[in-house]
């Protein structure tokens, strides 16, 4: 018998390169093995702070993205009608000349007529800077249809946010509430964390309409009705307040709960904080029975009651207003149970479990620290209740206030940055007061905007509105329709460019955003608008430039296509100026480096943008002689300084590479990063690991590193006075007021204390006709990725079903695998169903972005992705139904402009047996402008020369 030959000790490859993954947004460290110059194996970097050696399915499948037949090969110029996919391949010089000519003309005439929208890119500190230097306010990235509600609510409440700027204390938490967390946001860090919680025996509660993925391993599954999370949370608050299970010491030391709020209805300062002569907020000191500076020590602040201010007016502590609101019977468990689909008993029990863990099982670390008042504490007291909340909260039109409600719950029990609770990820906490408002109103002499286009309005005067109070931006972000749309409103970009009612758009410049398909709320409308013509035959949206690495559904709608590289063929930086890889343990950032040279005529988009900036002579991209300052993105990463000593990368700064955060550019910086595994991290000392918002040493060091500009205490905003300023304007106070038609809406939604309201779409549709909620989630193996053309990942999932509860299917006569028609106020689609038990009975759901347009991504035209896969987006609209005056409001959160994907309601009926077994709508097939290489059999990894028998 022949002996099996096993080569035990083959080296993996002949070379290994450390870089950063980009198969999703998590930014894990990877070690890429090459053999004979070709990819062999990608594994997690064991030293990397984000993934500590593990790697998700997408990360391991990166090889198949890099080798995808859908990769674009050369710049393309449209020659047929828009949407036809008829292109001519052109040289880069011609492509750059076309773009430069167009953009130069725009910049010389009306810079705002360039709309620059990017997708899930991680270079927003560059793209936003380009927009600012170009001088257009019409810039945004994908946050507006992703999770701006979480970002805005977090940053305006606690100076941090779920996901990007905060994380559960996986090591010390004893109770973890995971609210609206689909199988995404984020990937490996949550999985590592869940594993750690399980190992330690902590309890995990999943509040989610769907029991899959992370929710499947929770110790308790709470199958909430979509859009009612705010009601559930505030009912928990009701129970905790009723029983006195809150942390008043935390409230008065770290939040503004004790600030006095002026009670003078109708006055221009009603609802604002009472201040002393210098504007410092006041509290009522029970020790002296008079007002006192709310931020001084050694006072006994009142939390309840009504007090008389020195000027004779009445004022109440913010907490008193809060207690009045949430102790009201509307938030009693019995009052909300049916609406939430959770029994009152369950709500009361979960509140009791929170109280038990927070107050009977606190965590005390024997770690001295000093607070911002100069007091030394011998230990750190923690409330080990951690919360993580995400898409299920964010994607509703009540998501901002719901997320605020979650932060209020955290503050009430002292669970913000205390041991065992939710912790800031570096560079947060950030003081809200130093956040710049959005740029756009003013330009410098050199044409640049005086501030970045995306910013943080602190009051009505910061809005981007005209004298009539109407929006200046094409997407209506930072207008009275969405005052704190801090990520812009990408889902309105095409509609806005098409409507041309606010800002005439000449060129729509898009990067890595599949706006003609799954990144459109309504792909049918998006493609119609992209191809719509004026009476004279010209396109209504005159010019579209699109940069993408693959033949996505959006490519055929561009006039000029700039082909990007894949993530293993470029430099990139995961910058502290954008969204770095910092953790609760300290700041960190990372780079990507080219592991392979492109085998096609493509260029990294960031290099192209820097080239365009140089050709256009944009400020800070050219020198005084008008010559380009940077020859590449890598060059920019090292030499660009946003502020003196602060650049895209925080590590290895200064002449000798020893400066942390702030320091002169170091020509050797990239080499130092590469030698360190393509990342940099700084470990905070133990005394700085918690209470960062009030931790003197932490704040001082963070300021020294350039993370923050001011090291004063960051007071947590249980009462958000900023929102009240907008409300007062809605009552007619101040110089900037909303148009009459929006006043009631602004006054209602810009509430300084969180409240729950019915998701807006539900209030304007016939719920009797559309009784079911419809939501989506991305499967873990494809979350945030461009994986559908990936030969390995598509074997895991290449078609999707609509999942429905047994009890909802039965009365409709629907059985497993039946074809059904799904109808919403906006349209109808056809798909197949699968019955399940672990879903809220009033809810249907499906996997998002599995459905592809036929021919896109160069998949065969009969691929399951287009044949039996479908996109729920066809049922959604970016607009709400028109009001009696004919105006349609955006289908968004009225505070932040977040796309309200999850407000959708539908009806379902079984298809007749004779109907065609193919999902609908089924738009015409796309044809790539090149011949894709489709092997019948892929033999990746075969030894060279080896073929089939």
């Amino acid at each position: 018998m022949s002996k099996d030959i096993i080569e035990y000790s083959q080296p993996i490859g002949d070379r290994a390169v450390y870089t950063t993954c980009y198969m999703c947004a998590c930014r894990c460290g990877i070690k890429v093995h090459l053999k004979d110059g070709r990819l062999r194996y990608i594994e997690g970097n064991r030293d990397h702070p984000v993934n500590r050696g593990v790697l998700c399915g997408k990360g391991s499948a990166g090889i198949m993205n890099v080798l995808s037949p859908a990769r674009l090969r050369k710049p393309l110029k449209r020659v047929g009608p828009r949407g036809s996919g008829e292109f001519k391949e052109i040289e880069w010089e011609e492509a750059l000349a076309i773009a430069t000519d167009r953009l130069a003309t725009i910049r010389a005439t009306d810079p705002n007529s360039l709309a620059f929208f990017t997708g899930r890119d991680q270079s927003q500190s560059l793209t936003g800077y380009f927009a600012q230097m170009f001088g257009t306010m019409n810039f945004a990235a994908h946050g507006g249809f992703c999770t701006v509600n979480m970002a805005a609510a977090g940053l305006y409440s606690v100076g941090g946010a779920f996901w990007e700027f905060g994380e559960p204390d996986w090591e010390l938490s004893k109770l973890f509430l995971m609210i609206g967390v689909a199988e995404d946001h984020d990937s490996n860090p949550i999985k590592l964390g869940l594993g750690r919680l399980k190992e330690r025996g902590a309890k995990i509660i999943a509040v989610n309409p769907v029991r899959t993925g992370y929710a499947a391993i929770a110790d308790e599954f709470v199958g909430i009705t979509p859009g009612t999370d705010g009601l559930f949370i505030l009912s928990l608050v009701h129970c905790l307040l009723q029983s006195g299970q809150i942390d008043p010491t935390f409230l008065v030391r770290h939040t503004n709960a004790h600030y006095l709020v002026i009670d003078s209805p109708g006055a221009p300062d009603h609802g604002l904080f009472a201040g002393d002569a210098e504007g410092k907020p006041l509290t009522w000191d029970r020790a002296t029975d008079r007002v006192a500076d709310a931020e001084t020590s050694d006072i006994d602040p009142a939390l309840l009651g009504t007090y008389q201010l020195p000027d004779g007016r009445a004022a109440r502590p913010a907490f008193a207003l809060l207690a009045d609101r949430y102790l009201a019977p509307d938030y009693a468990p019995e009052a909300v149970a049916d609406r939430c689909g959770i029994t009152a008993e369950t709500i009361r029990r979960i509140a009791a479990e929170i109280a038990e863990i927070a107050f009977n099982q606190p965590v005390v670390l024997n770690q001295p620290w000093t607070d911002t008042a100069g007091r030394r504490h011998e230990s750190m007291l923690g409330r080990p209740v951690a919360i993580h909340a995400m898409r299920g909260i964010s994607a509703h039109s009540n998501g901002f206030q719901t997320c605020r409600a979650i932060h209020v719950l955290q503050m009430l029990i002292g669970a913000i940055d205390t041991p065992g609770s939710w912790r800031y990820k570096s560079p947060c906490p950030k003081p809200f007061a130093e956040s710049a408002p959005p740029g756009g109103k003013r330009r410098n002499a050199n044409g640049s905007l005086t501030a970045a286009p995306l910013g943080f309005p602190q009051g009505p005067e910061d809005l981007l509105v005209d004298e009539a109070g109407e929006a200046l931006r094409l997407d209506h972000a930072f207008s009275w329709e969405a005052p704190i749309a801090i990520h812009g409103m990408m889902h309105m970009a095409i509609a806005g460019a098409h409507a041309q009612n606010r800002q005439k758009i000449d060129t729509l410049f898009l990067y890595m955003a599949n706006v003609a398909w799954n990144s459109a709320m309504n792909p049918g409308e998006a493609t119609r608008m992209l191809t719509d013509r004026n009476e004279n035959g010209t396109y209504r949206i005159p010019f579209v430039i699109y940069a993408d690495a693959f033949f996505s559904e959006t490519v055929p709608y561009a006039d000029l296509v700039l082909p990007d590289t894949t993530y293993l063929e470029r430099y990139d930086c995961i910058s502290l100026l954008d969204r770095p890889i910092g953790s609760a343990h300290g700041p960190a950032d990372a780079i990507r480096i080219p592991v392979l040279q492109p085998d096609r005529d493509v260029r990294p988009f960031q290099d192209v943008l820097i080239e365009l900036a140089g050709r256009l002579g944009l400020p800070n991209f050219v020198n005084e002689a008008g010559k380009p300052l940077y020859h590449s993105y890598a060059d920019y990463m090292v030499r660009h300084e946003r502020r003196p000593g602060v650049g895209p990368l925080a590590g290895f700064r200064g002449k000798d590479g020893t400066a942390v955060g702030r320091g002169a550019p170091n020509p050797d910086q990239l080499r130092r990063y590469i030698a360190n595994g393509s990342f940099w991290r700084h470990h905070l000392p133990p005394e700085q690991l918690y209470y960062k918002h009030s931790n003197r040493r932490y704040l001082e060091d963070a300021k020294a590193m350039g993370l923050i500009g001011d090291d004063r205490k960051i007071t947590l905003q249980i009462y958000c006075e900023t929102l009240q300023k907008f409300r007062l304007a809605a009552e007619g106070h101040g110089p900037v007021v909303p148009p009459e038609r929006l006043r009631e809406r602004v006054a209602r939604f810009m509430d300084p204390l969180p409240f729950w309201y019915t998701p807006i779409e539900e209030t304007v549709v016939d719920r009797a006709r559309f009784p079911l909620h419809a939501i989506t989630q991305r499967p873990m193996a494809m979350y945030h990725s461009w994986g559908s053309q990936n030969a390995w990942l598509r074997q895991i999932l290449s078609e999707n079903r609509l999942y429905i509860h047994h009890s909802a299917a039965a009365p409709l006569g629907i059985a497993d695998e039946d074809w059904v028609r799904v109808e919403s106020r906006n349209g109808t689609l056809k798909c197949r169903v699968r019955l399940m038990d672990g879903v809220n009975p009033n809810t249907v759901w499906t996997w998002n972005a599995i459905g592809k347009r036929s021919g896109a991504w160069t998949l065969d035209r009969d691929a399951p992705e287009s044949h039996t896969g479908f996109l729920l987006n066809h049922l959604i609209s970016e607009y709400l139904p028109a009001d009696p005056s004919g105006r349609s409001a955006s289908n968004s959160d009225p505070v932040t402009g977040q796309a309200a994907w999850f407000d959708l309601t539908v009806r379902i009926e079984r298809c007749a047996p004779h109907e065609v077994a193919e999902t609908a709508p089924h738009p015409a097939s796309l044809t790539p402008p090149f011949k894709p290489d489709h092997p019948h059999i892929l033999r990746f990894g075969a030894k060279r020369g080896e073929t089939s028998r």
Partner: protein
Amino acid sequence: MTSLPQPVPGAKKLGLVIDLDTCVGCHACAVNCKEWNTGGHHAPLPDHDPYGKNPDGVWFNRIHSYEAGCGSSSRTVNFPRSCLHCEQPQCVTVCPTGASYKRAEDGIVLVNTDICIGCKLCSWACPYGAREFDEDQGVMKKCTLCIDRIYNEALPEAEREPACVASCPSRARHFGDLGDPDSPVSKLVAERGGVALMPELGYAPVNRYLPPRKATIPAKPLERPAAGSGNALLRLIDKVLSR
């Protein structure tokens, strides 16, 4: 037919321990397994029709997610499935050529593809569906427990573990010697009540699955005020607060 090796007292029984309490069903292990092994001992693991209507390739590790039970007792189970490296593997004993074999020294079940005739008897014999036929080469392939990693002296010692274990993001997978009652994996199995799959069939799988468990927080009900008063809150707030 192929015979099994004589049991050696104290010999290793290498295998996997998979924690169903922690597995989120993310497919990370499956894809990393695919990626490693397509260039490993059984290279390649081909993919048929990779961009077409019926994409279908060879995978040594596949994940199934399904619901068990109904109503309040129902749960969603994520279940990774790969070769269990049975002690009495019928996939070996049915092999007409000796291609399928079990190693005496560590218990790993392997296929010598040089003498595999592709008759598929082994895949019919395996009740766990753990064998994968490579139609391109006409031979049977399967999980090798990453034999080219676990003994690989070119790798740092910490990395000498199967790719599925190294990559698992929730750390739900463990590798070790289940023949040694004092090994960390054996202790884990004992502590958590790990089970073998379908032991009644008599194949004596080596791999173990750890059952889901439920953490609870005993807490006494919260105080509810008598109608019209917020007593507990007032009592709390009445205390002197020190800023």
